[in-house]
C-alpha cells in the first residue's frame, strides 16, 4: 500500500505512523483518518475475496473494528499497513466459514447457476467462468491471488503481510495459481 500521508490533505499533515500512534492511544479522530484513507482499498480486497457487497461490507467493518480494539498491542506502528491487511484476510476467512453454514439458502448460489445467456460475449463469459473457478478456492488461496493480482503486491510484501518467509509465500502463491488452474478445468468440464 502507498503511505497514507500522501493522501491526507491539509497544511499540517501528520505521518501515518504518528496517526497510528494517536489512534493506538484511543484517539477516534485519528482512527477515522486511517479508516477514511484505507476503507476503499480494504473494501475492494474483501469484495474480491468474498464476491459480494454484503459480505465484503461486514468483513471490512469487522476488520476495522478488530484493528481498533487491538491497535494498542501493535508494537511497530510502521507495520500498520501489513498488519491491517492481515486482519482483513482473517476477517474474510471468518466470513467464508460463516457462509459455509448458510450455503444452502444463499441467493448467490441460485444466481451463479443461471446460464449466462446467449448475448454474453466470449470475453465476459471467460471472466464469469474464471470467477466461478475462483469461488472453488479456499480463503487462503483467494487471499494470495487477490493480494498479488489485484493489489499488485510483490511476493516479498505478501510475505510481510502474511508473516511468512518469502520462499514460503512464493510457493503458496504458485500453489494458489495452480489450484485456480485446476478449478478452471473443473468448471470447463461442468460446462460441457
Amino acid at each position, binding site marked *: 500500500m502507498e503511505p497514507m500521508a500522501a493522501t491526507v490533505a491539509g497544511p499540517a499533515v501528520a505521518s501515518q505512523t504518528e496517526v497510528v500512534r494517536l489512534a493506538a492511544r484511543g484517539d*477516534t479522530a485519528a*482512527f*477515522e483518518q486511517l*479508516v*477514511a484513507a484505507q*476503507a*476503499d482499498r480494504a*473494501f*475492494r*480486497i474483501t*469484495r*474480491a475475496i468474498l464476491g459480494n*457487497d454484503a459480505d465484503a*461490507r461486514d468483513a*471490512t*467493518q469487522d476488520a*476495522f*473494528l478488530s484493528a*481498533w*480494539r*487491538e491497535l*494498542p498491542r501493535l508494537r511497530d506502528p510502521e507495520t500498520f499497513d501489513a498488519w491491517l491487511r492481515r486482519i482483513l484476510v*482473517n476477517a474474510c*476467512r*471468518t466470513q*467464508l*466459514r460463516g*457462509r*459455509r453454514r448458510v450455503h444452502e439458502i444463499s441467493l448467490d448460489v441460485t444466481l451463479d447457476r443461471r446460464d449466462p445467456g446467449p448475448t454474453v460475449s466470449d470475453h465476459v463469459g*471467460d*471472466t464469469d*467462468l*474464471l470467477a466461478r473457478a*475462483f469461488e472453488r478456492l*479456499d*480463503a*487462503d488461496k483467494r487471499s494470495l491471488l487477490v493480494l498479488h*493480482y*489485484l493489489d499488485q503486491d510483490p511476493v516479498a510484501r505478501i*510475505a510481510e503481510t502474511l*508473516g*511468512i*518467509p*518469502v*520462499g*514460503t509465500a*512464493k*510457493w503458496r502463491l*504458485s*500453489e494458489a*495459481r*495452480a489450484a485456480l*488452474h*485446476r*478449478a478452471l*478445468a*473443473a*468448471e*470447463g*468440464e461442468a460446462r460441457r
Partner: protein
Amino acid sequence: MTSTMPFDLTDAAIERMLAERAGPSAPGGLVSGIMAAVEATPQRRRSWIPRVLAPQPRSTGGRALLIAAAVTIALLAVAAGIIVGALLRPPTQRLDPNPAVVPTPAVTAAPSATPKPTDSHAPIATITPSPSDSSIVNGAMVVYQFRDTVVDLYLLDPITGRKIMIGNLQKTSESQGQHIQWATDRKRAFVFASSDSVQAILDIEQGTVELLGLGSSGGRDAVSPAGDLVARVEEDTDGSSLSIIDLDGNEVRRTPLPAGLQAFSEVAWAPDGSSVLVSGCLPCSETAGQQHDHVFAVPTDGGAIREVANWTTGSFGWLGWSPDMTTIVFSGLGCSEPCTGGIGTIRVRDGLVTGLTNAADRSPAWSHDGRRIAFARDSGTGRGIYVMDADGGNLARLTSAVTDGGDRSPLWSPDGAWVVFSRVAPDGGLGDLYVVSSTGGEPRLIEQNAVADW
C-alpha cells in the same frame, strides 16, 4: 485435465476477473458505519500476558513469575469451571461431539465448562484426568479440535471412540496453520498455531496444558523428537537462518543458511535429533527449468551444513525422514501447471532422487515401520488418499475426495492397520477427521473441525 481447459489462464485474465469482483469503490456510508461501531467499542490495553507470549529469554525470576501467573490462571479457571459447569451443564456434554458416529464412547474426567479467560491465548483449564487407561494412551491420537469459542485438546482412540480430555485453549482465529504433534516418548504433545503465534505443551501424564512463549516465526515450527527444542526458519536482512530454540524461548543455536537461498518454512527433524532438513531454491525462478532446488541437513551440534540433494526438474516441498533415517520422502510442492510434482524420495547416503508418483500429490506420511507411504492426491478425478510401498510399488487408492477441498494429511496408526485423514470443505478450515482401513473400505467420520497426530 488440460483437454478440458476452456481458455488459457493468463495473468491478465486473473487481473481482469479480480478487478470485476472488486468493483469500483466502497459503498457510501461505510466509513461512518465503521466509526459508529468504533465509538461504542473499547480498545484492549496491553496486559502482562502478551509479554509472557513474547519471544524473550526468561530469567529464573521471570520464569517463577510466569509459573505463578499460570498457576493462578489455572486455579481460577478450574474453580470457575467447576462452578459454572455445575450450574450450566454436565461434564459429559462437552465430550461427545459425534455421538452418532463414535460407538460407546467412554467419557472421562474433563474441564466442566468454559470459564471466561483473562486473555485470548490463556489456557482456560488444566485438568488431571489421570489417564491410567493405557489401552487409550498407548495407541491414541492426540487431537486439536475447534469447538465454539475454545480449542479442545484430547486423546482419542478413533477405533473405539474412547477419549481422554487434556485441556483447552481459547480459540482465537479460524485461520489455518494449526497442527499438533506427539513427542517420541508419547508422554507429551505439542500444539502450534502459527498464524496466532500460539504454542503449548500437553503433558499427558499430568493432564495439563502449558503455554510456551516462543513468539512467531510466521512459518511452521517443528518440535524435536525428544520434545525439548523447536526449529524454525527465520529471515532477516542478512538472509535466511535456521534457529533452534528451547521451550523457554532461548535461542540455543542459529545457523546461517547459504547466501541467497530462499528457504521454505517447512523443516524436518531427523528421528535421532541430530540434524534438521531445510529446503529452498537458489537460484529461484518462476520459469520452469531455471530454478535450482536444494535440501540441506543442518546439524544441531553446530557442525557444517551438508547438501543432501539438489535438482532442477522439480521443487522440494514437504520433507519427511524415514524412521531408519536412510530415506527422505518429499512432495513436489510449488510446481506450476502442468504440474508434474508428485511424491519422491531422496536416498540419504548419495542424494539419489527418485520419483514415485507423477501427479499433484502432497502430504506424504511414513508408516511407523517405514515400509509404506500414505499421501493425498489433489488432481482431477483421482483426488483422494493413497498408500504405496516405500519404493512406489503396490499403489492403492483408499478414498475418493467428495469435497472440492479434498482429502488431505493422512496419518498412520501405530500398527499400520488404519489411516486417518482430513476431509476439507472448499472454504478451508481444519477439516473433518475420517478413519479408513489401510487395506481399503468405507471411511468413517470420527471428529469434526479437528487436526490430529497418531
